[in-house]
């Protein structure tokens, strides 16, 4: 499940919300490069931002976060590690939801096949989306 995709690009962001923009920029650039639709690019940017923000909020990434992206069988695979465990509960009253509940609701709505895998004691968040591959020169 958590087998690294081939031809992987990586970025490591320090444990600071100031670098959420860098995480989004990286994932967005890779997704555009493999010609994901614009809406998918935006969804992946949101995934990167929410996953990293939750990890910062939960204090589980003092050494920073790795984001990996690569093509695997015509799909773009994105992995984020370490990932938070999130509040795995449905939102009741939207006004009273916790930030973790909102984030998890968003991510599972955007990516129903989102995977959380435990690898060597670390939680990895993983998603696959269709990718056409790099545009021709």
């Amino acid at each position, binding site marked *: 499940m958590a087998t690294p995709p081939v031809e992987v690009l990586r970025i490591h962001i320090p444990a*600071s*919300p*100031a670098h*959420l*923009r860098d995480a*989004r920029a990286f994932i967005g650039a890779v997704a555009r490069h493999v010609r994901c639709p614009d809406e998918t690019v*935006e969804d992946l*940017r*949101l995934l990167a*931002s*929410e996953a990293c*923000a939750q990890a*910062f*909020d939960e204090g589980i990434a003092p050494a920073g976060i790795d984001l990996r992206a690569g093509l695997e069988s015509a799909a773009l695979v994105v992995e984020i590690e370490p990932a938070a465990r999130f509040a795995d509960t449905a*939102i009741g009253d*939207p*006004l009273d*939801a916790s*930030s973790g509940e*909102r*984030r998890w*609701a*968003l991510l599972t*709505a*955007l990516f129903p096949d989102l995977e959380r895998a435990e690898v060597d004691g670390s939680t990895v968040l993983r998603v696959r989306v269709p990718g056409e591959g790099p545009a021709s020169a």
Partner: protein
Amino acid sequence: MVTIAGELDLHSSPQLRDRVLGLVNDGVDRVALDMSGVGFMDSSTLGVLVTCLKRLRERDGALVLVSVPASPMKVLTLTGLDRVFEVVGSIDELPTS
């Protein structure tokens, strides 16, 4: 009317909270946020907006979101907050009272 632009996330949204709550503390009870220039918004910002809305409601006030682009609107919708916030398409549609 408060105009906000750029990318709103865990890092930047506290500035929005401070701006709106500063207005509330100054006695403003109806706040409209022009969001037409927001290119990205995450759920941390939703928390800020909810905080501001609750504070305004304590004073019988209101928070209106104006010209919300598609991507931030999707975030509001998927978390059910599109049913909580008053959202209008343009400044012309702002309530007069």
